[in-house]
């Protein structure tokens, strides 16, 4: 595990991985978009508006997944003081914030025609908005200190505290009456989505996941290079 986590080794193996991640992302988005927009059927209740699901649901899943990954990496950085873990946490935050924003915006665009409103303050929508603010808070706190180590530690604690929001988002639709409907895919009794719509959704989710890994690898490389620049500058100034 630590063999891959050394920053220089990471630069080497992620460099070899990048073109594959890029190719997988583009291929999966190509097939996924074809299925989502053209090959999949309309819904018996929602008609063609159901196609918004193919971007809304993967964005919402990734918003949660990304947060758990960010908090996990932040915890590893906090406990074991591993520099690469701090970098992974920092690099995940803007990607997760983008996914959360997309989930909120595409949700509004879906809610207006189906529910009759862009936004309501129900438990699901509100807790996802809180998730968005947690991401923004993490990004702000992480860069608020001159010493990047202190920024990483302070923001890691925020990320861990915010972790309680994740089960609240997931189960809000089961615990309380919400306008948002309960889960369709990960639910007791199996998915309530017909396979002709489930497969396009899973492909789009795979595309979003590859996109996350690709951009994460690029951003982590960027952070490692920034660390090297900082180290060289210090050497130049004091060496």
């Amino acid at each position: 595990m630590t063999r891959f986590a050394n920053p220089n080794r990471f630069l080497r193996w992620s460099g070899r991985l990048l073109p594959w991640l890029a190719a997988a992302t583009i291929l999966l988005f190509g097939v996924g978009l074809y299925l989502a927009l053209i090959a999949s059927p309309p819904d018996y209740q929602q008609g063609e508006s159901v196609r918004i699901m193919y971007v809304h649901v993967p964005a919402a899943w990734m918003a949660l997944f990304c947060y758990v990954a960010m908090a996990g990496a932040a915890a590893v950085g906090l406990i074991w003081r591993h520099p690469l873990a701090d970098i992974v946490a920092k690099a995940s935050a803007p990607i997760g914030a983008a996914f959360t924003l997309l989930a909120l915006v595409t949700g509004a665009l879906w809610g207006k025609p189906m529910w009759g409103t862009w936004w309501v303050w129900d438990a699901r929508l509100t807790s996802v908005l809180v998730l968005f603010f947690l991401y923004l808070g993490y990004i702000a706190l992480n860069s608020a200190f001159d010493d990047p180590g202190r920024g990483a530690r302070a923001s890691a604690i925020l990320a861990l505290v915010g972790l309680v929001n994740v089960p609240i988002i997931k189960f809000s639709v089961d615990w309380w009456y919400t306008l948002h409907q309960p889960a369709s895919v990960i639910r007791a009794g199996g998915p309530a989505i017909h396979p002709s719509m489930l497969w396009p959704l899973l492909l789009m989710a795979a595309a979003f996941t590859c996109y996350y890994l690709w951009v994460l690898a690029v951003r982590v490389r960027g952070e490692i290079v920034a660390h090297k620049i900082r180290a060289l500058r210090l050497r130049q100034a004091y060496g």
Partner: protein
Amino acid sequence: MKRKHKRLTFVAVGLGLLGLAAALFVSAIGDSVAFFHSPSDLANQGDLGDRRIRVGGLVEEGSIERGHGTEVRFRVTDLARSVPVVYVGILPDLFREGQGVVAQGRLRGGVFVAEEVLARHDETYMPPEVAEALKQAGTWQHMGQHMEAAGAASMPADGYQ
């Protein structure tokens, strides 16, 4: 090595306490987070006065009556109790008999006067042909939870194209 373990214990205990606090918080706020009340809640709550509330449930089969203009009357049911609703305005596309609905307004003399009506959809997704085939095969109730929630109520009258 020792400091690492200290930090690990600190984070683990902290997360445990945080989880406990969150669980207590969630169970304490309980129903106050609910976006709407069911017709049964409404009946148990007694006099609400002029308070603005939301009532949610299913649009009762065969209860929709169109008045003049955009006035519409229907009943919202949770299959135990139901409440009559009157609303003047544009209804969302998903508003149908047997479908979920949330109305916001005030209870006036036993009738719920709605200012806003939102549709609530269930978690079932399928193509119209499949819905049609399921209905004809009479196996509709097995698809999705919402039909169970609807107490195996009859099909949405116009629930497909």
